């Protein structure tokens, strides 16, 4: 006979409640060895590989990559005796992944029992505090007391009410022991009561109200927690549905907030940056810049910082609540970065106070950290002005949307060799386009234009970088 086993997501780091499936290292049908890496999980603490707890054949992956899974929820099933012939459906009462501790408060797997039934507990270390643990059944007095719905098999099927069988998310009930006792005496199932106490604690009054005749049962919170299985392409509709979450969700909220709060204006300028590119290559060989990357972006950043000094109002924010414009005497320079997890805008704190080599090092480090996905939340807060370097994607420019709370964003396009009128004749020059979007509540066309012209002017003639420093 084949033997099927579920494996549920364990608490990988002392008190975690969920993890994201980064990547599956096996697929359904694969034969796996004991301790062979099967999946990479990212938790709040670390990204780790999980080694297979069984030798056998993978029969089911319960979640797609990118999904966030609760601790204790099955993620993969195995057939540990693939020589057998029965289908998984023939074994409806698989006991694997049982979340019910065999002894109150104790987690861990006991030895296989004589009947060959092995309880697989995966919750060692979670303790009762996680809130994801399924509660144990109460004594029979609570007639409807249901089995933990996600794992109905372990508790005898007869005890599982129809309602409970439909539950997919566990319901955590907060109630003090005397209230539990009262509920037991009155035959009230605490799980179907919406608690009125602190943090939803079920109170004595709630239990008494629930016990009185004619009341309507509150629906337990459930189906919203169903993890989406819709990541896959659906050939019937020819559509793919991707859950909106994480960085994508945050980006969307920020962009909508910005676009519909600040009236945007975008201006453009095209400029010959050949002298700037020459300057960059000379800086690269200068001892002060040894070991740091000197990119055109560095000089653009420097020009922007100097232009901010000449036009402080561009580096400000609109405080609607206070009805004040906040002009900042410091520049936290944001750099929009495309990372594997999406767009983020970390910023360099007090960028205006840095020397050129310091700024170069800060830019390099910021980008490297962002690409590794290690940007700290603090590095993304309190930006004052932003550069988005779309040129690295080979496009000429765009109309950027302001980072919320800021008044200007400079878009740096691709630097291309183009025919250009230079000193009265057509020459092949290195040309790029800058676009500046600004918040018209604060920045009028004159200020925006002067600022953009100053940035462009410094890059067309980097001598000004010196004269304005």
């Amino acid at each position, binding site marked *: 006979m084949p033997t099927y086993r579920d494996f549920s997501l364990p608490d990988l780091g002392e008190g975690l409640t969920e993890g994201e499936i980064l990547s599956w290292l096996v697929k359904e049908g694969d034969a796996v060895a004991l301790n062979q890496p099967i999946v990479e999980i990212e938790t709040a603490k670390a990204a780790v590989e999980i080694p297979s707890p069984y030798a056998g054949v993978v029969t089911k992956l319960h979640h797609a990559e990118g999904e966030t899974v609760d601790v204790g929820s099955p993620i993969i099933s195995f057939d540990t005796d693939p020589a057998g012939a029965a289908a998984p459906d023939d074994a409806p009462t698989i006991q694997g992944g049982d979340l019910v501790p065999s002894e109150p408060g104790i987690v861990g797997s006991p030895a296989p029992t004589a009947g060959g039934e092995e309880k697989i507990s995966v919750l060692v270390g979670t303790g009762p505090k996680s809130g994801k643990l399924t509660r*144990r059944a109460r004594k029979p007095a609570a007639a409807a007391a249901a089995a933990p719905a996600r794992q109905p098999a372990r508790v005898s099927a007869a005890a599982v009410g129809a309602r409970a069988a439909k539950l997919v998310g566990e319901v955590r009930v907060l109630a003090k022991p005397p209230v539990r006792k009262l509920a037991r005496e009155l035959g009230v199932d605490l799980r179907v009561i919406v608690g009125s106490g602190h943090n939803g604690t079920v109170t004595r009054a709630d239990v008494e109200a629930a016990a009185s005749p004619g009341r309507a049962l509150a629906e337990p919170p459930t189906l919203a927690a169903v993890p989406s299985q819709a990541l896959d392409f659906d050939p019937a509709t020819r559509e793919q549905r991707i859950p909106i979450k994480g960085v994508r969700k945050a980006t969307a909220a920020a962009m909508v907030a910005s676009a519909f709060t600040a009236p945007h204006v975008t201006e453009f300028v095209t400029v010959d940056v050949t002298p700037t590119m020459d300057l960059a290559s000379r800086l690269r060989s200068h001892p002060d810049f040894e070991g740091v990357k000197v990119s055109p972006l560095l000089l653009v950043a420097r020009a922007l910082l100097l232009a901010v000094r000449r036009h402080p109002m561009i580096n400000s924010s609109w405080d609607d609540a206070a009805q004040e414009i906040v002009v900042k005497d410091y520049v936290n320079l944001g750099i929009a970065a495309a990372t594997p997890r999406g767009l983020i805008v970390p910023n360099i704190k007090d960028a205006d106070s840095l020397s050129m080599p310091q700024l170069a090092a800060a830019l390099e480090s910021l980008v490297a950290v962002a690409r590794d996905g290690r940007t700290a939340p603090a590095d993304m807060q309190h930006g004052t002005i932003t550069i988005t370097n779309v040129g690295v994607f080979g496009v000429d420019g765009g109309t950027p949307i302001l980072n919320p709370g800021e008044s200007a964003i400079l878009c740096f396009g691709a630097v291309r060799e183009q025919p250009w009128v230079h000193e009265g004749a057509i020459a092949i020059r290195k040309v790029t386009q800058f676009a500046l979007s600004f918040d018209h509540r604060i920045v009028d066309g004159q200020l925006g234009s002067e600022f953009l012209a100053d940035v462009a002017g410094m890059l067309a003639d980097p001598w000004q970088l010196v004269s304005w420093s």
Partner: protein
Amino acid sequence: MTEALRPQPSEGPEFVQLLTPEGERVAHPDYDLEISDEEIRGLYRDLLMVRRIDTEATALQRQGELGLWASLLGQEAAQVGAGRALTASDFAFPTYREHGVAFCKGVDPVTLLGLFRGTSQGGWDPYQNGFGLYTIVIGSQTLHATGYAMGLQRDGGDGAAMAFFGDGASSQGDVNEAFVWASVFNAPVVFFCQNNQWAISEPLEKQTRIPLYRRAQGFGFPGVRVDGNDVLAVLAVTRQALARAREGSGPTLVEAWTYRMGAHTTSDDPTRYRLAAELETWKLKDPIERVKAHLSRSGGADATFFAEVDTAADELAAHLRAGCLALPDPDPITLFDNVYAEGSSLLDEEREQCAAYLASFAAAGH
């Protein structure tokens, strides 16, 4: 000052090494080691077994069978060298990472897992093997070891105590107090510091301005730095330090220069604070590879031997896994049992309340 930033051991006499990372035997003026091929094969077997215990326990944690595991990966030679220097009459006072010392002291690795599985608050009888219970509090075991050594001194016992601790613990008051007491009372104790360069995420340069072994001089006893990834050198140095303690010459500080190749524990992610390049340089100093290279090159062992050890290690891993899954769950009410030796009325009351609360649930599974 450069030394303080990252004290790098040199090849000079202050860094005791008897087997290079390439597997070459080298001599040291103060620490000669007469050792047969058979004994080296035994050490190789220990190293491999200990690493296999660690690998399997890490896997068990990832599979939800342990709540936590503190990996010793990379520190096998330091632990096996010191563990094999200890005799039956010596007593080891470990941290929570001394799985290799436990193995050498004859403690069944399964019993180490009870603490990490939450089924036991200790797991073994310290007196049975002369191996103390794992100590989670950082550095306190150095005081226990010193006190035990002073007891040996007064009882006229012929053994010595060895306190295990790390570079992070060297900053603890307890450790420095232990140094003072051991020095002043000439206690038969060896302070064995595995300097694995990282106290969780805190680098060595945040612990000390001078090499750790030199601290001993200020307390008035000798300190020595040994290549902690060289099992032969660790064995030679700790043997000598233990002999010195037993003969009444007082304490020694041994700094085993090694590296924690893995995370601090399974709850830690070292990639957030360590550079990958550092790990790569230490991979070249692997404690097991150099012994294998030496045995292969010198003809001290052949492929059959290495294959046999691999098989034995796999058998040990299977024993560990089966034993882990079979560890009995204690009754939750036993939580109250070992708080006070003679009980307390408040605790009795709380035990009754807890029992009543537990009784308010149906038995699971019915």
